[in-house]
Structure formats: C-alpha cells, structure tokens
C-alpha cells in the first residue's frame, strides 16, 4: 500500500523542495541585502528607493521555486482535487526535475544577496552609478533562470 503511493510522495517532496530551498535562499539573500540597505538609509534616507530595488533582487528565486511548485502540483493533479496515480519511477523523475531550481535557487539567492549588499555600497557612494551597480547582482540571476528553465522543461516533459 505504501509502496503503491510512494510515487505521489516523491512528486510532492519535489514540489516542497523547490519552494523550500529556493524560498530559504531568497529569505537569506533579501535579509543580507536588507541589512546593507538599512545601513545606507540610516545615513541617507533619500536613497531608499534605489536600495530597496537592490534588496529585492535576491527575492526572485523564491518566486521561481513557487512557480515550479505550482506546475508540479498541477501536473500531479493535487491542485485539481484528485491526485493522479503516479508510480515510484515517475515520482522520482518529478523529484529530480524539481532539484535544479531548489538547489541553484538556494545558492544563487545567498550569493546574490551578498552581491546586492556590495552594490548597495556603490549606491551609497555613487548614486549616479545605480544602473551599473544593479548589473552585478543581476548577473547572478542568470543561473537561477537557467535552473528554472530546466526544472520547468523537465516537469512538463514527464508523462503522468
């Protein structure tokens, strides 16, 4: 009985990991950048809008994780009310498909948070260089997007 239902458990675990890991990474990243943003606003409140944008950059990984989580849940029918009958092999495939955004999301969000904090330092000293400052943390985003792409492609490609 348990073995029969293990497929859906793996699939759900995949969705949970995508949301949990990417979301945690974003929380840490936004937290790091937020501390730096608060430091600048303490001295110069006029820079609030600029540093807020910087702070939000590491938040996207959490959204990507959520997106993959939604697609997975809808794929296995949990959103529609009736869970599909999924064998263990398919469940594991879905779990594997969710891992890229989970792991790359976690790591990239933390590093993006650190890069954002450093870029907030640029805004503090040279506010006119805001555009350039924003590019550095944005570069880290590339790898979260690549992971998101592979997760979405994989989840949608799996036949349930």
């Amino acid at each position, binding site marked *: 009985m348990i073995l029969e239902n293990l497929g859906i458990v793996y699939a759900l675990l995949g969705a949970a990991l995508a949301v949990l890991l990417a979301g945690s990474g974003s929380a840490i990243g936004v937290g790091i950048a937020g*501390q730096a943003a*608060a*430091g600048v606003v303490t*001295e110069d409140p006029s820079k609030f809008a600029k540093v807020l944008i910087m702070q939000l950059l590491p938040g996207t990984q959490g959204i990507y994780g959520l997106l993959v989580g939604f697609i997975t849940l809808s794929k296995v029918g949990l959103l529609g009310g009736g869970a599909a009958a999924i064998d263990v092999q398919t469940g594991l495939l879905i779990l594997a498909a969710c891992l890229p955004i989970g792991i790359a999301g976690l790591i990239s969000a933390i590093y993006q948070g650190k890069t954002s*904090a450093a870029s907030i*330092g640029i805004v*503090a*000293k040279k506010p006119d260089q805001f555009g350039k400052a924003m590019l550095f943390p944005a570069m880290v985003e590339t790898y979260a997007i690549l992971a998101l792409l592979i997760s979405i492609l994989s989840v949608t490609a799996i036949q349930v």
Partner: protein
Amino acid sequence: MSDLQYTYAVARIRAKENALFSGATIDQLMACKTYENCLQFLAEKGWGDADTPANAEMILAREREKTWETVRELVSDMSVFQVLDYPNLFHNLKAAIKEACTGESHSNIFYKDTVPSAEELLERVKDRDFSGLPAMMSQAAAEAYDTLLHTRDGQLCDVIIDRACLDAIHEAGKAAKSDIIRKYAESTVAVADIKIAVRAMKTAKTIDFMKRAMAECDSLSVDALAHAAMSGMDAIREYLGGTDYAEGADALAESPSAFERWCDNMIIKTIRPQKYNSFSVGPVVAYALARENEIKTVRIILSGKLNGLSDDSIRERVREMYV
C-alpha cells in the same frame, strides 16, 4: 557567517565615507587664508556641533567623539578596537607612573575613555598594585616605576613603557582574527621601530638601547635595523630599501617631516583596500583610523595657519587621505 554580522555597519560606513575629507577638500582647507577662515570652512563642512565653541581643539575633540560614538553604535564587540587605543592607554600609564613617582599632580595629561581608566591606572600605580593592571602592562609598569624611582631617568621609563606598548600591539595583531588588525599591528610596530632607529642614530644611542626600545615584528629584523642605525643614516636607508618599507628610505632622504608623513601614509595605505570590502569589521576599523588621520591632518593645517607657517611647509606635513 561572522563577517555577515557587519553588513549593516559596513553599509552605514560606506555612506559616512562620503563625508570624509578627500585630498581636494584638504586643498580647499589649505587655500583658506587665515586660521579663522579655516574654522569657518570646517563649520560649513559640519565639523563640531552648533554649541561647540569656535576653538580648534574643541572642534577636533568633538569630531573624535563623534567617530567613536558611531563605532560604538555599530560594533557590539569593541575588543577589536582595543589595539587602536593601546598608545593612549600606555601614555596614561607613563603619566600615572610619573605622577606617582614625582608626587606632582597635573590635570589634562591623561587621555579619557581608556580601559582601564586613567584614574584606575593612577590608583593602582600609587598603591604599587602592578599585578592588578592588565597583564600586558604589569611587568613593564613595575620595571618603569622602579627605574624612575631609583634613577630619575624619565627617558628610560618612557622607553620601557613604549616597548611594552609595541609588544602589546604586536601580540594583539598576532592574536587578531581580523586581517586589518594584523596588518595594522605589523605596520605600526615596524614604523615605530624605524622611527626609533632614526632617532637613536641621530642622538648617538648605543645598540643595547635600541634593542631595548625596538619591538620584534615580522617584516623587519630588529637586529639588522639596530646595526644599520649604528652605521648611520645611509645604512638605515640601504637596509630599508630591501624591505617592504623602501619608500620610507626615500622619505628619510628627503626630510624628517617627510618621513613622519610617510609613517602615517603607510598606515593609510595598509587600510585602503577596505574601501572595497563589503563585509567584516575591516571597513569600520579603517573608517576609525581614517577619521583619526583626517583629524590629525586638520590639526596640522590649523596649527600651521595659526603659527604663520608657509603653505609649503604645511603641505609637506599633510597626510594622504583615505578616500
């Protein structure tokens, strides 16, 4: 994660660095014709408070207080900064020993805000309770006290305490987790050793005196430096030419004030990479040192203007700025 706990502090320091004087600001201050114009310029830059009297010392003291108020606000573990306070602390020890031995009491010779306080130091020295002093100073304090009491040789007393101070800075540097404190300690001790060698050479001191005054450090050999000092200025320059302090040799050749300026610039050069560090306590330490350097430079300019020194001779003493 420990470096990340300073993220807020470093970002705030980055914003505060905008208010630090650049070389251009120092040029503007230099361009002020009179001492009063300089004070007005400083007031326009926000130095002092609205209720601070228009007096250079009061303004500079207030600025120093502001710096340390900021640092205390940003850093919960002030032990990192203790090493920066050692010169003041050991100065207080010297003053306490001299006051205890001579029985003469002078106000305003102690630095405030040291740990332990000047009053506590004086009390312990008067009671000859040297073991109650911090471990780094207890032995030197006892030795300096006995030396002064028996020989009345104030200079020897100073040498003993200064050596203990340099040893304490060196030890603190070696024990420090923070890279900037290690580099600061090494530069400070090495520069002090070079200063001792130059002064001892000029006053024809013995090699034993020099070795007693100089503290060990990693970037210089005390033995080689002392031997070079015995042979003369050219030998010191030649020795320094082969170390990290080759530029100091050029400064020595130029003039004594150029050498003093190089000593301070050396510290600023050591801390300058912290401008590009976004985490760790390093930028906060660098800011505190940069402010001290800035205040010292402004003091040099103000006293130069007050005493009618020529712009050239003031400029010769103006230090490099951090930003």
